[in-house]
């Protein structure tokens, strides 16, 4: 074993690895949901706004309200509120897989709002030029909006991922496990404060790596 590791980490290493994998599953699926569903919803929200290409007051207001409601929920209450739905979809409301569903829901709402705000920063003139070139909505999204806002989208995803890590720490309430749940069960509840502190340090390191990677990538792809 690596001699520099504190004894307590060595003692619980298999449980720690297991909880890291659980957190990775929950956060990973949340990131995937944010990208595959949150990105299109955020884009659609932007396009349906007043003065934009697909301006539609009813669609915008409905979608905007839905995103706001989901984001307004205290996350713990959202998890509990969603238990019947989670059971219906996943067949169970307990465990890592079941915990992933509410995480995905909040991830979609969270990222879609950040996407909408990122796209608002694209100069209107760029969209106007695209329209004057005969671009379709699909062209405008993929050849102009995403290209021009790509660093903001990466930074938004970085912020979201860090929030998802934070959300995942309370998934122990439905047996989701994860690194945060491990810190509470083994560190706090068993009076192993040293273990809890080490786990917090591990989480901080993870967050620093994600933040640094996000900022570096965003800076690299920003040519404006």
């Amino acid at each position, binding site marked *: 074993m690596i001699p520099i590791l504190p004894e307590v980490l060595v003692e619980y290493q298999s449980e720690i690895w297991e909880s890291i994998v659980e957190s990775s599953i929950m956060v990973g699926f949340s990131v995937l949901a944010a990208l595959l569903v949150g990105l299109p919803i955020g884009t659609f929200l932007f396009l349906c706004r007043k003065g934009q290409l697909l301006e539609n007051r009813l669609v915008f207001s409905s979608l905007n309200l839905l995103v706001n409601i989901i984001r307004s929920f205290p996350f713990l209450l959202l998890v509990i509120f969603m238990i019947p739905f989670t059971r219906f979809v996943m067949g169970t409301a307990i465990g890592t897989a079941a915990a992933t569903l509410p995480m995905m829901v909040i991830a979609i709402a969270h990222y879609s709002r950040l996407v909408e705000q990122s796209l608002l920063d694209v100069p209107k*003139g760029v969209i106007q*030029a695209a*329209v*004057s*070139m005969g*671009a379709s909505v699909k062209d405008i999204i993929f050849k102009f909006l995403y*290209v021009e806002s790509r*660093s903001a989208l990466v930074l938004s995803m970085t912020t979201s991922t860090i929030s998802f890590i934070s959300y995942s720490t309370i998934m122990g309430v439905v047996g989701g496990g994860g690194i945060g749940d491990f810190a509470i069960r083994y560190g706090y509840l068993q009076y192993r404060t040293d273990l809890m502190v080490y786990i917090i340090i591990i989480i901080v390191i993870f967050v620093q790596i994600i933040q640094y990677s996000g900022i570096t990538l965003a800076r690299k*792809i920003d040519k404006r």
Partner: protein
Amino acid sequence: MISLQNVTKRYGAFKAIQSISLNIKPGEIHGIIGSSGAGKSTLLRMMNLLEKPDDGDVIINNKKINHLKGKEIRNIRQSLGMIFQGFHLVGNKTVFDNVAVSLEIAKIAKKNRTERVMESLRFVGLEAYKDKYPRQLSGGQKQRVAIARAIVNNPSVLLCDEPTSSLDPTTTMEILEVLKQINQQLNVTIIIVSHEMEVIRSLSERVTVMEDGQIYEVVEIEPTGVNKSKKGAATFVEQLKSGGDSNPS
């Protein structure tokens, strides 16, 4: 060519354009001048339906286009180039990609794009800048890229919305020279909106003077030509001595 027949545009109760009829002749350089709020940009933007008229017709090549939708409008727009005061380049694309995007939109095969993009960049004198990003260019160079983007699809008409308003006098002359070459060498009809009399006078053969959303008069003139001999400070001195741009307002 382009013909507007009794077009009207309202924003709420405000009439930005009031029943205007105007015919643009093929191959001409047509200037539109007027003070701020006269409706000149709105009139120009109606020609490619960036603004749809509330009444009247926009006719291009004997075809009414203002009732067209979706793909048909997009096809019409692809045959009309447009440049703007603010250039509106994509900051995250290179000069080459900013020009190439116009061909991508028109679904031109990838193998044919490079040659056409380079041809356009050569025309505006920016061949060597193809790998630069817009932030690395001066205002005049950015407008040249926008021009290259607008002409790469071989448009029959180039709409210019205040193309030199944010440029210094020397760069303005350079851009006007490029526009003149586009008209003469590529046989592209040019419609240019400006509030700068010098700009309109140096290029246009016919000028529509606008006031309060209406045509005040259409005047035929002999273009004074672009003065290429004066550069830098000499241009400023000349403008100061001649009283600068005379604005119709």
